[in-house]
Structure formats: structure tokens, C-alpha cells
């Protein structure tokens, strides 16, 4: 019999048939039509597929669905209500922290995970924490500026 798994996705309880070979990345993209989470390498190198699992940034391409059972998943689509931008999203807009924008959802989710753990990281810590998210267009300096701009006390409450 087909096993059904349950987990929380962007604040809603969802369920789906378990397919042992399926990664969280492609379950999100095909089963849930949440295409904001991107494929870049499929092997955990680039971070384009970053989502939060129980508030930890993870590479969804390396997570099998069996391990998602009972977990809480947040994707870029779940970061803010439909008509609003999360402060990190707003910071990316204000700093124009993207070119092609393909790496952007993964960058934002990774930055969100970083700030949840440490709301005021130094520039150095931001760079370390973002290091394995790849941007081929070279929007790095604007991305660091954007993340840095959110990392202060005033914005802290809005994030939580």
C-alpha cells in the first residue's frame, strides 16, 4: 500500500503519497507547484533550492521525502502573505540584490535562516553564512548589503 506522509508546508498541514526516490525540491516544484524553489545542481552545491526545514536552511535537492514526515517546511512563497514582502525580500528589492534573479529565492531563504539564528550577524558572518549559495551573475556585493541592512535591532521583531 502506498504510504502517505504528512508535514507542514508554509503554515498548512499537507499530505502526499510517499515516493522513496523523490527529493523535497521536486515534490515542491511538481506536486505542490511551488516553483520559487529552484534547481541549480541537484547535489547540494549551489543553494538555489534552499528552503527551511524546522527553521534550518536546507538544500531541498538533497532531502528525500521520507525525511520530511512531520517536519515544518517554509519556502519562498511562504515567507510573507501574498500582498506583502518580508523585510528580507524588501531589502533585496531596495538594494537591487539580483540580476537574473534565479539564485534569489535560495539566497533569501538562506539569509532568513541565518538571521533566525543570529539576528545581528557581522558582515563577515553574513559572507561566511552565504558562502555556499552561488550567484553566477555576480550580485554578491548587493546581496551582502541587503542582508546586512536587515541585521539590526530595529528589524529584529519584524523577522520573528
Amino acid at each position: 500500500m502506498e504510504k502517505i506522509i504528512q508535514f507542514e508546508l508554509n503554515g498548512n498541514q499537507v499530505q502526499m503519497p510517499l515516493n522513496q526516490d523523490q527529493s523535497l525540491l521536486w515534490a515542491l516544484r511538481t506536486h505542490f507547484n511551488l516553483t520559487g524553489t529552484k534547481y541549480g545542481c541537484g547535489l547540494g552545491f549551489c543553494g538555489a533550492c534552499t528552503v527551511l526545514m524546522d527553521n534550518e536552511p536546507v538544500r531541498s535537492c538533497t532531502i528525500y521525502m521520507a525525511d520530511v514526515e512531520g517536519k515544518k517546511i517554509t519556502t519562498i512563497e511562504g515567507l510573507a502573505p501574498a500582498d506583502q514582502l518580508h523585510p528580507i525580500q524588501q531589502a533585496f528589492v531596495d538594494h537591487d540584490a539580483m540580476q537574473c534573479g534565479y539564485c534569489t529565492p535560495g539566497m533569501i531563504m538562506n539569509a532568513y535562516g541565518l538571521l533566525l539564528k543570529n539576528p545581528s550577524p557581522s558582515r563577515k558572518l553574513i559572507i561566511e553564512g552565504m558562502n555556499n549559495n552561488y550567484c553566477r551573475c555576480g550580485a554578491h556585493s548587493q546581496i551582502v548589503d541587503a542582508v546586512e541592512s536587515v541585521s539590526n535591532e530595529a528589524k529584529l521583531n519584524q523577522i520573528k
Partner: protein
Amino acid sequence: MKLSELLQEDLDIEIETNRLKRRDFIKLTGASLGGLFVFFRTGSFDLLAADQKRTLPTDYNAFLRIDEDGEVTCFTGKIEMGQGVITSLAQMLADELDVAFESVKMVMGDTDLCPYDAGTWGSLSVRVFGPSLLAAAAEAKSVLISLAAEKLGTTTDQLYAQGGVISVKGEKGLFVTYGQLTKGNRIEKLLDNQSKPKDFSEYKIMGKSIIRTDATEKVRGKALYAGDYRLPGMLYAKILRPPSHGASFVSADTSAVRNIEEVMLVEDGEFIAVLHKDPEQAEKAIRLIKAAYTFQEKKVDEKTIFDFLLNSETEERVVNEKGDIKNGRIASKEVFESTFYNSYVAHSPIETHTAVAYLEEDKIIAIVSTQSPFGVQDMIARELDLPLEKVRIITPFVGGAFGGKAPAQQALEAARLAKLTGKPVMVHWTREEEFFNDTFRPAAVIKLSSGMDDQANISLWDYKVYFAGSRGSDTVYDVADQRTASFSAKNVHPFSVGAWRAPGNNTNTFARESQIDIMAAKAGMDPLEFRLKNLKDERMIGVLKAVAELFGWKPAKFPSGRGYGIACGLDAGSYVAHMAEVKVDQKTGFVEVVRVACAQDMGFCVNPHGAKMQMDGCIMMGLGYALSEEVEFTGGDIKTANFGTYQIPQFSWLPIIETVILDKKEAMQAGGEPAIICMGGLIANAIFDATGARLFQLPMTPKRILEALSKV
């Protein structure tokens, strides 16, 4: 340099070029769209067509539409891949037409809606398409003003336009909007170049920094790339690939996948694919197919390739000759002979090649990640034997391209499978497929002999570039006796090569600027001073002086131990000069780039903020080919398969970047590529200044740096 010459340089390397056909846009667009139509000629494309004997369009190349509600739509065959033309072209149209920037909507890269365009490359969008767009907008405005004069009972010179409204000078309350004018007036008009665009000093929206208009969609994860389209019944396809380039298909045993539930198998000669609604299931299934191949590969690898290339039969093209290099040799007190190398480099956009195709009756619609929607349309029509009007290409946001998405083989794969199966088919290359099928920046060699007289004047320049192409091979410096030749050959590389951001120029600028520093060091001169002494080109002198000021350059004899580097060059009409500071760990060979400054002269700059972002991007991306990026292979077998063995720049590499754009009111030039061309030479020169070690091969990996250090 003439544009046609620039393009010729790109053609030196084997770029996949699709045959281009003349298009008639009145027929194509039909009479279904309302509003005011303006068609315009593209003078510069005429020049291209004649020069290159390609059948590029000579008639209407682009158009705009003004709706009844005053919304302006700009249709362009150009596409948005991160370079920002979605914003800068809208700025240009709004400013010339005198409408609000916010009222301009861009429709890009849709072959059913947009006028023909060869492709988004060569930094042509603003410098070539731009003037045409301005000319169209200027003409549209004069048409509107003459209509307004009729309506308001005035002469045209009593009127002025602002914010989409035409008013009578000095008469408050007497006005008509563009929207009111177009209502009920459908006008087609062939432009005859009579209305002139504004003077650069009159622009108000152009020249302003505007944040990209697509940012909000992108941060929400709502911007759609080709892989994000979801169609009813859509299947993901995985295609059987040969194990290496040059392998010939013999047979395939597909029995293992024939009876897997929900897996569809397609066999069309050598073209074999499996389809499934889940890409991971399709991937699993394709691995079950056992295929046999024969191999006749070129026995070369990333180490032996340079000898192999130099020993192959090549065709020589003299790019430039002045004076007589024999005399130059005699006049030289000292002659410097150098050979420079660079390895194959991958494009590696984070979005891999992706396309989804489906049938609408007998018409194929393909949504494609490409730089060349019309090229793709031609390819699909030709390969699937369809008339052009039965193929429509739609280009959504493109997740980076850098030249690598001019070829878009994945679109043909998707279209072919859609035609064979009748289903919507998504082809979304894996990273491994992306590396395997990429058209790499070619491995290349440059042999350079230069000479200097006893006054530190460059007296000889004998330049031979093999396989990089001649773009950027300009001597730049003032040399009486000089010769530049470009050598190329067909089918010499073990796999496909193609245009990579500023094709050829990265390699050529690396060689030239390294050689200049070698000479400056020998002359015992500061490398900036040596350059200025040997330059006549005022624009080059201008960017060098600007970057020196920005960087705070202090003259010294090199190597000074400070790790300072300098390089300059020109690409696609723009001038750039860079300075950098690096630290080299002499034990590990690891280079830390501390800061990079760059000055750019790009003529009139439409969106300074956007242009500066392109400069930042060029600098970051350029660090990759300078320091780490190199494709490994044995014959046609590409060993580099994913980012684990191909290191692109990361956040920890980020130097302090400072940029300045010179304030010019001259013809608009390129912005997306120039600032990448100096990165190899810049870092090589900085490493020399830090350590006294001279690097002759890109990328300058720790291993190569240690080797060079051992020779100091």
C-alpha cells in the same frame, strides 16, 4: 571600430549560428492589435546585413504600441537574462516618447508578438537596438503631435508633450492625451528618419538610476523561468546522451524501461527519450537503457590541448597591420617573446538550459530559456520541417546566459518530443547535462613578440591569437610597426565551443596587458606611467586616470611587493580600466583579492545604477576565469560534471569593489561585458607585483602560482 567588424571577430570562433530569415512584420502581427503603430527602420542593422551577407531584416525591426488607456507597450526581440534591459529599454522609450516610465510595459522575446531580432548578445541591445528604439519613439511622438494639432485646431509648433499629454503652450486646460488621440485612430506609418531623437542633454529619465522593474516578482519567487511553467498533462523528458562527444551511436537496448508504469518511451532513430510526470523518475528510467557506441576521439586533455591546437592546420586572418614589423624588430633595443594560454571555461548559469513545448492544434509553442528566440524558431522549423508561422517561441525570464544560451538545443528536444507524443514536454537539463552540452569558451594560445626602444617606447607588436577570436586583440597602444593575426580552424576542438561573455576579449586582454607589464617592469617604470607614455587614445587615457584616482594609485617600480595590479582594454565600444590589490599566500599559492576598482567610459549611460551592477557582476564573474575555472576532459569525455569540480566565485571571494562611470554625452556603448575583459591580466599583474612571479596561463590556480613562484 565598425560594428560589423566586431561581429566578424565573434565569428572567428565556431558559434552555432542559425540561418536568419527576412521577416515581414505587418503580416506577422496582423491587424488584431489596437492603438497607434509605429514601424521603424533600423539603420545599423542594414549595415550589418550588407556587410555580413546575412539576411537580417532590412525593414521594420521593432515597434511600440500606445493603447487607448495610454499604456505604452514596447515589443522587442531582446530578452532579459539579468543584464537589465527590461529596465533600460523602458527608460529609453519613456523618455523619448515623453510618457511616464511607469506606463511602459515590456513584451520581450515572443516570436509571435515581437519584431525579428537575431539575438541578445554582443552588447547590442542598448548601443544598436537602442538608437532604433529612440528613433521610433521620436517618430511616434511627432505623429501624435500632428494628430493633436488637428484635434485642437492649432499648429504643431504651438504644442508640447509631457507625461503622455499634449498641451497648447501658454493655454492652460487645452490638452489631449496620447490615449485620447489613439482612440479610434489606427495609424500605420513608415518612418523616414525625419524626426530626430532628443539631444542627450534633454533626457530626463535616461541617465537616471532606476532599480530593476522585475525585482518584486523575483524576490517573491513568482518570476517565471522556463522550468516554472506547469501545463496540464505535462511530462518531463530525459534524453539518452552519448558518454562522450565524438562517440557514434550503434544500438540501444530499451527493454528495461518498456514496462515501467507511467514511463513513456520515445525512440526516433538515435534520439531516445523517456518521459514521466516526475523528472526524478524519468532520470531513473533513462539510466536503465543500455546503449552501445563506437569511439573515435581526439586523444587530448586539458594539458595537451595547447600543443594539439598549435599543431592543427589553421587559417590565418590578418586583423590589423601598420608599418612593418621587420623594421620594428630592428628599432627595438629589447624584444620580449611570450606565449599565453587559457583553458576551456564553462558558462554555468545557475538556471540550466530549460524548455517546455506543447501543441496548439498543429502549431508548436515553446517556452524557452534562450538568448535567441528567433534563432530557436528557425531551428525548430527547419529541423521539424514546419513553416515558421507554425512555431512560436516565448522567452520568459532567463536565469543567466552569458553567451551559453544562444544555442538552445533543449528547445528542439522539447519541441520534437511534444510533436511525437502530443503532450506538453518539459526538458530541464541537469547540471551534468549542462556541463556536457555547453559550448565552452575555447582554449586558446597567444604568441606575442613586442619590442621597446631605449626610451621605453613600444617599437614592435607582433601578435598572433590562436582560437580565441580577434575581439579585443586591438593593439591599444601607439606602436609604429605592428601586426595582429587571428588563427582559426573548423572542428578542431573535441567538443563545442562558443561565445562566452565578451568572446575572445578576456583572452586577448590577458595577453596584452600582461605583456605590457612585463615591458614596464623591464623598463623600470611604474606600469601606469608606462601605459600613459605609450597611449594616444584619449578615451583609454581617460579611464586609466579615472581609475587611478578612484584606487589611489601611487607610482612605484614593479614588483613593489604591494600586490597592486592594473589592466585596461576596450570592448564593444566601451573603454575600461581596472586596478586591484591582492594578497598571495606563498605557501599555498592562494590569492585573496582585496579590492578592485574600475572606471568605464560607455558613452551616454542610460541607467548608471544598472550599469554599475553589471560592472560589479563582471568583476565577480571574471575572478572565476582568472583564478579557478577550467574544464577537465579526456578527448570528448568531459570530466567536469558539477560544481564540485568546477569552482565559480563565491561570497568569500568578494573584494571591495569601487566603480566609476565617466560622464559622457556621446553615443551609447556596451555595458554588460566590458568590465570582465581585464580580470585575467589585472590579477596576473597584481600577483606579479606581490611576488615577482609571472603567470602565463589562465586560470591562475594555486598550483600554477606555486609553479611560477618556484621560478622567481
